[in-house]
């Protein structure tokens, strides 16, 4: 390890905005003079809203003076704003809780309500068993019927109830294939055109991987997946697929061949976004705990938009991943706590992780000649223990020194878990982008944790004792029940299943290994193509920008209900 010169500090602008008029390198400041929660416009808004609710319902609610520490409200120190990293948008911390942020809700909605279903199996049944002709024209007709049926409309029976299109306008189906000739023959409104959506090199790799098979990218209504659960998605989709085949191809509704179509749509040809979890964690498919890190890195599309900046692409995965896995999955599904947001946002606010990661990029370029701005497998470093240790050590020490030399930076990340996650993420990303090996990146993560703990004699909350101090031992294990390559690990991997501030970063480390190589996808080309869809409510190429839009209340989500409730 050897410190390298890097004069740019990406976090400085944020610190100066957050701590206006103060020397961001000073070790002292003033406390107890900020008038408590009144310094926060958002918390003032909360109080006003709560008073109205109380008058309406007659039950007490938000009362930060009486109820916080017996009369000492939040805000004895300065309550900070946050810049959503990479966006220039400053928001209040409260605006990054998923309850207060419609973009965050929609990101998860868009994943949970998605399945990918193969069409080749159904076409074989239609052609070989029923003697039906399948042509681009019949496929177009079927897709018309399916886009009528998928939101909840009838296609075969008489006297059926149906859903209001204005309530399910986010529901639709498109198709994709690696067969460009077939894609050109289908109606453009129904096609995810790989050649148009991806940079040429990525498009070529994706088309080759998908081949001549044809796949449906299906997004059921947000309202449905919210009212039910992720396990509903494939069932809802399969029902409408079955009915649409019956309608479009004039099949008998009760004939045995329908079972083949149903089996294909419900089981044989389905790509879920997440596998179901064991009984102890009891969730169906398409719930966050079952999303493999490789799949998540394919869901996020930043490497499509920024193919020459694997660090940026990885940082977008960090933002999306910490929001989903920390704030929603561990925070609410598993724990029920409200405070997880404070941990998670540290990784995608104030450009701090960005600065540490780009320091790592400068380091791997300077020392190992990795031309990270031109991602390629050809200049990746051999992932030896010595090299991984070297990269992790330098990136970790640099980050620790930044916290030391900018006391406002330390105050920004006031919790050890925040600092631990951010420092280790920078090390992991630097390691994985340098080597193109996700497990090497995970190994760098754990060395950082040990260094951090010994340097400052502290790490994170209790959970870090468990997860991070034993993590070195499993990073390179791929034996069944003991380990796996990073791509197929996930939030329910045994050693990862309990600890906030990790899973989103792990996903990004996996993604970084591929973004650093210039790969078109990390694990599943179909998922990569599916989420490139510009018609999706949430833009997966810019998760952090979308969160910022949600925070400043400029994001328009799905799940409209004003059509069926009294006007306010």
């Amino acid at each position, binding site marked *: 390890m050897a410190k390298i010169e890097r004069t740019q500090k990406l976090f400085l602008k944020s610190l100066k905005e957050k701590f206006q008029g103060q020397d961001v390198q000073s070790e002292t400041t*003033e406390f107890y003079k900020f008038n408590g929660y009144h310094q926060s416009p958002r918390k003032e808004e909360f109080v006003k809203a709560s008073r109205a609710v109380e008058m309406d319902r007659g039950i007490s609610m938000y009362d930060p003076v009486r109820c916080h520490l017996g009369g000492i409200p939040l805000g004895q*120190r300065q309550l900070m704003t946050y810049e959503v990293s990479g966006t220039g948008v400053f928001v209040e911390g409260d605006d990054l809780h998923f309850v207060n942020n419609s973009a965050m809700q929609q990101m998860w909605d868009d994943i949970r309500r998605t399945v990918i279903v193969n069409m080749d199996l159904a076409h074989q049944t239609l052609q070989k068993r029923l003697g039906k002709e399948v042509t681009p024209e019949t496929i177009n007709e079927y897709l018309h019927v399916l886009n009528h049926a998928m939101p909840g409309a009838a296609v075969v029976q008489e006297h059926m109830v149906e859903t209001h299109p204005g309530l399910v306008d986010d529901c639709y189906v498109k198709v994709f294939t690696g067969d460009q000739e077939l894609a050109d023959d289908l109606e453009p409104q129904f096609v995810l055109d790989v050649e148009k959506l991806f940079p040429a090199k990525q498009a070529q790799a994706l088309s080759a991987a998908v081949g001549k098979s044809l796949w449906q990218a299906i997004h059921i209504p947000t309202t449905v997946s919210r009212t039910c659960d992720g396990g509903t998605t494939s069932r809802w989709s399969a029902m409408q697929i079955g009915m649409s085949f019956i309608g479009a191809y004039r099949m008998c509704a009760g004939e045995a061949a329908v079972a083949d179509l149903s089996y294909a749509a419900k089981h044989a040809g389905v790509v879920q976004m997440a596998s179901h979890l064991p009984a102890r964690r009891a969730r169906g498919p398409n719930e966050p705990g079952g999303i493999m890190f490789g799949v998540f890195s394919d869901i996020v599309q930043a490497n499509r938009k920024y193919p020459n900046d694997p660090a940026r692409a990885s940082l977008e995965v960090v933002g999306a991943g910490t929001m989903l896995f920390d704030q929603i999955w561990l925070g609410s599904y598993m724990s029920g706590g409200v405070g997880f947001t404070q941990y998670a946002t540290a990784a995608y606010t104030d450009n701090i992780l960005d600065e540490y990661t780009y320091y790592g990029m400068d380091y791997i370029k300077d020392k190992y000649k990795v031309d990270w701005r031109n991602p390629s497998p050809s200049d990746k470093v051999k992932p030896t223990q010595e090299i991984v240790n070297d990269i992790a050590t330098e990136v970790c*020490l640099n980050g620790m020194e930044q916290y030391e030399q900018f006391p406002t930076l330390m105050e920004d990340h006031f919790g050890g878990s925040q600092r631990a996650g951010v420092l280790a993420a920078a090390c992991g990303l630097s390691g994985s982008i340098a080597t193109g090996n996700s497990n090497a990146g995970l190994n760098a993560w754990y060395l950082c944790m040990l*260094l951090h703990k010994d340097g400052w004699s502290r790490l994170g909350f209790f959970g870090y004792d468990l997860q991070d101090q034993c993590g070195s031992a499993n990073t390179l294990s791929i034996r069944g029940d003991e380990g796996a390559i990073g791509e197929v690990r996930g939030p329910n991997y045994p050693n990862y299943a309990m600890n906030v501030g990790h899973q989103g970063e792990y996903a990004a480390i996996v993604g970084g290994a591929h973004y650093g190589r210039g790969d078109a996808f990390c694990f599943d080309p179909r998922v990569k193509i599916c989420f490139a869809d510009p018609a999706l409510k949430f833009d997966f190429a810019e998760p952090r920008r979308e969160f910022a839009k949600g925070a400043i209340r400029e994001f328009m989500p799905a799940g409209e209900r004003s059509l069926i409730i009294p006007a306010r």
Partner: protein
Amino acid sequence: MKVKVNMAYKPQYGPGTSKVAENRRKQMNPNQKLEKMRDVTDEDIVLILGHRAPGAAYPTAHPPLAEQQEPDCPIRKIVTPTDGAKAGDRVRYIQFTDSMFFAPCHPYQRTYTECYRFRGIDPGTLSGRQIVECRERDLEKYSKELVNTELLDAARTGIRGATVHGHSLRLAENGMMFDMLQRSVLGEDGVVRYVKNQIGEPLDRAVTIGKPLDEKWLKAHTTIFHSLGDVAYRDDKEYIEYVQRIHSLRTKYGFLPKEA
């Protein structure tokens, strides 16, 4: 406290060639006497802890061991109970917050130190606080050592049961670590007094802790590496290499490390 060492190996108390590493080893080594810095009385310790009123009997969780039937357990024959366990005291706690601006002791260091020096304890280690739980009368004895020795600075070490926020914040302009509840205050005479117990309940009378230690002393005695202090972490190469070695061995061999 003199501890009889009867171990199969000689403890090294950690690696490192720096002053910080040396300070850490000194705190951990039970054969090294910790420097006494102040004299907080037994009664004042009880007030800060806030678990019982001074002079009140110790509440018990079970009858004294001598009065209850003990099972025929080989472990109980090996382990001598502490005074608190013998008496059947309930388990209570003391919790510290240590400022990253050169406080004398820090969470893991506290835990290691307590494990080497005290018996019958259950420490918990986080980034912003470190708790140690044990039988109440043992706790009061240990707390006295933790408070009266060089392990504590009046301004940069906090005794906080809840709402511990402050370890990583800038210091107040008077040098005190932030405490939302302001359990301890710096008087105009330069002396720090606790006006609330560790959980934040106001005390009937203030408990004097003494004057904060000066910056030079703190930087010379701290157990945190810090690039704005006397020792930057990267400058203790032996320490870094030690951690790298532990990591490499665990990576290759799990928790039964052996070098090829």
